[in-house]
């Protein structure tokens, strides 16, 4: 049953579902249907669960709306009100069209993000498998700290999303295709429609007024393209055109833009007039007035085209900066057409007062932060290596002289005697010292632990360490335990650790024992777990003492 707090957005009576009469309710977060006469809903779907909606084609007798869920199920609603069936269905469809995208993105985005993270980081994936799949901790705990980026900054992300701009040629891109016999087909996509609405808010307003009450979409667009509003020479503002108002508004808008003036006061466009020398040189004659009567036909059509180009460009640029606040902008546009509005006043003072920027920041000298010079008093300390001061053997100068003399005497008659370098006994003793088990090879036996343990065991041990590390991190981050939430978490984490030890560590230990590996690979892990248990025990006893 719907909770009282749910906001009902739309109620449609006489909607049949599975051959039963009933009422369709569209709420803030879900769509529901209840049979007639009964209080409860038999069908209820969250918008987040709905993948898409489908409608029956226009020609069919039955007016239906189908909802397809993510799980593959579909529910069909038959609008059975004779007079307003189509209208009802369209209303429901529109509302759903607006609501579904909001919910769809949220649900999918989280899953997508999780999947992406798991795929990108194999260590994370392994951790997930070890901890969540084997049910040591629950999935929510696992994702609690990692998904902070996605869920918390969701609105912020939308803010930073770049808006798609409008192509200046969007109208020109709708190339009409000849229909065979004197007709033209215009292919309108949703993107083009959106561009038209964003650039020409007047058209959007007309659309909202007329569709679906007076005209269908198809009729609206047909009239749009037929109207002189759209065509090149807009001299004759048509009479029965619904778009004639648009044209008038456009002219007003253009005038207001001209009146507003150029925003950059340094570019003095007014000085860029055509200066006439004489008749025949440059532009001569009076400046073209804006009244229609003075112009020749050709001039006025050129004028019209240029005006339309300028207006189109200005509207495209304005649409890019407008960002969706259409109603207020339109109001401001029309309000500023009363001659010297406050906007134009606003721009006059800066024109007079502006000065050229005389100092450019990046051409000036760098202002580095003030630093303190390093002042080393005893720099010879660095030169001394990590050789502890030992009392050097003191050699007297007499000793030195003696030794030098001796060696010089010896080497004066040096002749290499390469056949007497080694005697066999000496050589064999050296070889035995170098053979495995010899004097020099002792250290090797202790260091070969990574050669004695097979690599799968090593890999498993690494996974155990990663998983244990993750659990211990959660455990130790709970201390100091200040809030009841942390208390619960600490207790939960302790049971998680015990479960981990039971389900993962013990089997691993048994396995390596069976393989006769005498090395103690898991001693350190056990130590870490025991420290955690001790800490928990101490905390628990303290808590008991505080309570009593």
């Amino acid at each position, binding site marked *: 049953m719907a909770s009282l707090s749910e906001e009902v957005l739309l109620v449609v009576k006489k909607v049949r579902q599975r051959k039963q009469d009933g009422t369709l309710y569209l709420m803030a977060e879900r769509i529901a249907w209840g049979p007639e006469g009964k209080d409860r809903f038999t069908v209820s779907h969250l918008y987040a669960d709905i993948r898409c909606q489908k409608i029956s084609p226009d020609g069919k007798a039955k007016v239906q709306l189908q909802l397809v869920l993510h799980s593959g199920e579909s529910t069909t609603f038959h609008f059975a009100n004779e007079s307003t069936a189509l209208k009802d269905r369209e209303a429901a469809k529109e509302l759903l069209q607006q609501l579904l995208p909001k919910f769809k993105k949220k649900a999918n985005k989280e899953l997508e993000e999780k999947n992406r993270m798991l795929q990108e980081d194999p260590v994370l994936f392994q951790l997930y498998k070890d901890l969540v799949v084997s049910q040591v901790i629950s999935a929510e705990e696992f994702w609690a700290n990692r998904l902070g980026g996605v869920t918390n900054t969701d609105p912020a992300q939308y803010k930073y999303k770049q808006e798609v701009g409008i192509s200046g040629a969007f109208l020109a891109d709708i190339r009409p295709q000849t229909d065979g016999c004197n007709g033209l087909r215009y292919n309108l996509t949703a993107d083009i429609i959106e561009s038209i609405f964003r650039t020409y808010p007047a058209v959007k307003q007309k659309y909202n007024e007329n569709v679906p009450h007076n005209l269908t979409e198809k009729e609206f667009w047909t009239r749009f393209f037929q109207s002189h509003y759209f065509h090149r020479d807009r001299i004759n503002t048509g009479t029965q055109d619904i778009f004639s108002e648009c044209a008038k508004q456009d002219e007003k808008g253009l005038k207001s833009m001209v009146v507003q003036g150029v925003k950059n006061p340094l570019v003095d466009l007014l000085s860029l007039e055509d200066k006439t020398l004489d008749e025949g040189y440059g532009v001569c004659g009076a400046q073209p007035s804006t009244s229609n009567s003075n112009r020749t036909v050709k001039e006025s059509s050129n004028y019209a085209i240029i005006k339309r180009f300028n207006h189109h460009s200005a509207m495209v640029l304005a649409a890019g900066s407008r960002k969706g606040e259409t109603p207020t902008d339109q109001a401001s546009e029309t309000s500023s057409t009363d001659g010297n509005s406050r906007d134009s006043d606003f721009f006059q003072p800066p024109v007079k007062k502006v000065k050229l920027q005389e100092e450019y920041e990046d051409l000036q000298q760098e202002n580095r932060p003030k630093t303190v010079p*390093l*002042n*080393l*008093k*005893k*720099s010879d*300390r*660095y*030169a*001394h*290596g*990590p*050789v*502890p*001061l030992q009392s*050097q*053997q003191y*050699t007297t*100068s007499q*000793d*030195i*002289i*003696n*030794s*030098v*003399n*001796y*060696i*010089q005497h*010896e*080497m*004066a008659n*040096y*002749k*290499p*005697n*390469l056949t*007497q*370098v*080694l005697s066999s006994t*000496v*050589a064999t*003793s*050296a*070889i035995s*010292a*170098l053979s*495995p088990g010899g*004097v*020099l*090879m002792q*250290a*090797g036996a202790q*260091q070969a632990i990574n050669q004695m343990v097979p690599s799968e065991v090593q890999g498993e041990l690494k996974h155990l360490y990663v998983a244990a590390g993750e659990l211990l991190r959660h455990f130790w981050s709970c201390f100091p335990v200040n809030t009841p939430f942390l208390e619960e978490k600490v207790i939960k984490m302790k049971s998680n650790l015990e479960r981990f030890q039971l389900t993962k560590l013990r089997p691993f230990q048994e396995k390596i024992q069976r393989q006769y590996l005498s090395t103690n690979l898991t001693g350190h892990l056990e130590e870490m777990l025991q420290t955690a248990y001790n800490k928990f025990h101490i905390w628990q006893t303290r808590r008991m003492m505080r309570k009593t």
Partner: protein
Amino acid sequence: MCADDEVSLLVIVVDVNPIWWGQQAQREPEFTLSKCLDAVMVVGNSHMAMARTNKLAVIASHCQDSHFLFPSKSWRGADNGGDDASSSGDGKYELLSVANNLIAEEIRNVMSKSEYKGNSTETLLAGSLAKALCSGQEMKSRILVIKAAEDCARQYMNFMNVIFAAQKQNILIDACVLDSDSGLLQQACDITGGLYLKIPQKVALGQYLLWVFLPDLEQRSQLVLPPPAHVDYRAACFCHRNLIEIGYVCSVCLSIFCNFSPICTTCETAFKIQLPQMVKPKKKKLKQPT
């Protein structure tokens, strides 16, 4: 043996500190500098005999300077007449006999010429290593250091620079230590990927050199060789020169101390450490009995 055309250079740096060797000759007459040089020659010959493209260089590291024993300036290569070269008369590969003769000649010159000045008793190993690095630029090379005397603490900075330069150029530094362990050479071997060995019997130097240090890097992976030693990388504090595991580092000049002091003695920066705040005990208001 790999049949590469790649030139492989072995540079042997021999510590010929006369004071140490002079004392050694008096301690143990069966192992003197002559014997050591014989063993070095054996290894050098073996290396050159392993492949035609192998090259050898020998540097003698003395108290005051370091000399190239081979190849020396007086070597003209194949242009030499041949009288000295083939004087060995035992049908030896000419290159080997030439090399041996040159080495012998040079070492005689080095040991006799050096007039002993001053009282430095330490070997200039860093300089020899630097020379070795320069000579091994264009080809795949490695350095074998045969060390006799103790480490010189004054050469520390130069030594470390040489080690890192070798690491960048992928030049291995191996060390065969005769007398006392050398922390600097241990670090050098660890950083560049070479082997460090302190031999228990000096007399068997030749055997150790052939067994452990003759094979090059690719061949070593197939052999069972002495495992790498544990290197002590602890830093020494600037105040006492004790090796410490946990210490205090000045954030301005990066000097290391074993105890906290509010002013760094090297750069005279003053430090403030926030003490944990004292929590004032709250006085509980007594409930008034009604």
